[in-house]
């Protein structure tokens, strides 16, 4: 938080940045008093902490509107996009990761690994543009960007941004799942389950998957950071009216109330995600639950 404060103040006085260059000293002084940058830094920091704690982010310097409302208008679009991508990843990465692990060394394994390696290496802004060129410009099947008139008009606007957003997560999870499944497949209890006559499907989906999930969950805890970064890029590429694109604009405009609010929001989201994952560990792995109660 202290870092954020220093960052917002070090970037130059917002009062002088928002006024035209020929503003009189009196006008600048008035603007400073309005924003509060005329007071000592310690006082400013106190107010800053208080505002962050009470979700009072003030008004946007550029739009002259309360920041909470501005973000509220746009956060829905971001969340919808993230949710759609998450669902896409869940229905693609898990079957494919398992497929690659159980058919190790076969053609399907190589294909999945190749796709995943490419997904990790290709920058998402470029993949987005590529998809746009192929499916929107050349083939004309899908809209190139934006959400159509009056909010998100149809599922067609979702397709390309969702694929682009999910690519990196898909690649990471597939790779991680494959390698952790391979490790678990060698374990003694898997042999035991097979020897007991448990069906192969059940061995893979119940005995192995459950144990292979732990590294994935650790990864998901830090994934939210990657997700926000990805959202910023994808929203810029596809003109998506979410908070990622808003953040880039705010950086360009030195609109610090908005920057502060978004960073604060993301920090809270990161903390929440870590908490949820910690709790989920106990659900997935009874050993951790037992450790905690003892």
């Amino acid at each position, binding site marked *: 938080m202290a870092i954020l404060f220093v960052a917002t103040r070090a970037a130059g006085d917002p009062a002088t940045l928002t006024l035209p260059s020929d503003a009189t000293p009196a006008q600048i002084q008035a603007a400073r008093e309005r924003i509060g940058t005329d007071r000592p830094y310690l006082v400013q920091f106190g107010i800053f902490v208080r505002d962050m704690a009470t979700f009072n982010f003030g008004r946007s310097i550029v739009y002259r509107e309360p920041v909470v409302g501005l973000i509220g208008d746009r956060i829905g679009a971001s969340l919808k996009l993230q949710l759609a991508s998450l669902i896409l990843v869940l229905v693609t990465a898990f079957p494919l990761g398992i497929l690659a692990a159980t058919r190790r060394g076969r053609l399907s394994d190589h294909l999945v690994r190749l796709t995943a390696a490419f997904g990790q290496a290709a*920058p998402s802004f470029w993949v987005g543009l590529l998809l746009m060129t192929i499916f929107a*410009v050349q083939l004309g099947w899908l809209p190139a960007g934006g959400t159509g008139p009056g909010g998100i008009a149809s599922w067609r606007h979702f397709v390309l941004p969702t694929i682009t957003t999910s690519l990196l997560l898909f690649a990471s999870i597939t790779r991680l799942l494959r390698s952790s499944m391979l490790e678990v497949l060698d374990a003694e209890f898997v042999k035991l389950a097979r020897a007991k006559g448990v069906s192969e499907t059940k061995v893979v989906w119940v005995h192995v998957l459950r144990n292979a999930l732990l590294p994935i969950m650790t990864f998901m805890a830090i994934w939210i950071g990657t997700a926000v970064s990805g959202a910023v890029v994808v929203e*810029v590429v596809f003109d998506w009216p979410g908070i990622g694109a808003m953040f880039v604009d705010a950086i360009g405009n030195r609109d610090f109330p908005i920057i502060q609010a978004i960073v604060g929001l993301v920090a809270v989201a990161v903390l929440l995600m870590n908490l949820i994952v910690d709790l989920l560990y106990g659900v997935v792995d009874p050993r951790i639950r037992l450790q905690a109660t003892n």
Partner: protein
Amino acid sequence: MAIDTEKLGPPFAISGQEFFVRWYAWKNLRRLPLLPLFIVALFVFLAMCGQWLAPVPFDEQNLRLRFLPPAWLEGGDLRYLLGTDNLGRDILSRIIVGAQTSFVVAVAALAFGSVLGSLIGLVSGYLGGRVDAFLMRTADGMMSFPLILAALLLVAVIGPGVHAVVIATSLILWARFARLIRSEVLSVKERDFVKLARIAGASNLRIMMVHILPNVLNSVVVLLTLQLGFIIIVEATLSFLGAGVPPPTPTWGQMVAGGRTYIETAWWISLFPGLAIAAVVLSFNLLGDWLRDHLDPKLRQL
């Protein structure tokens, strides 16, 4: 005691066992991913001397030759193999010169990030206790915070340029190194030779630097290769968002962004720089995977 040089044989004689060891090492080496290695070598070479290799000066504008398609398409010009952009600049030349920015940023960020992160990980793992808890909490915080957000903020504060991108990326990197090195140090410091060193009266500093550090360097090298591609992507993304190294220095991310407006008519402006990023990053990742499997198989989860 005199050594009987006759009995040692000629200096290059190899015993049967030794030959087998060398043959085995060579056999492993032969499974080197050759294509990625070639791409990486080409990338480094272009980064070093791209300025002299570009067929056309990278900033030469020619408005009459705007939007030339790649040479193999109708209307293409052999002088401009990959076509020209909206200002009539040669795309191939700009890709060649742009390699330098990616390379410089990646090497500098890795140098800062790995040294800082390794030292922090070393101290954190060795000292343990509150220092460890504090340092690792900080690292966790850094790792889970969205790096593009942090980098954008930082670039907004200190202004665009190579230094800003390097600082931003190394700030993100150190946490990854610190985390890994700490976990390695935790296992190394329990080994007997560390205890013996302590009994012999070695200071903490000496134990860390002389006894523990060399034993974790392997992991540092593996992580370095694995992170190179990541840094190149971060640099390109920042460039794409307009927060990277500013023009006129060409960077690949900037070139993709520049072609964005023209994808309906001139897709090649964005396609080729992006392809360059993807190829180089993929190569670094594959090389890193190979290196990890051979030097440090226990890091497989990375």
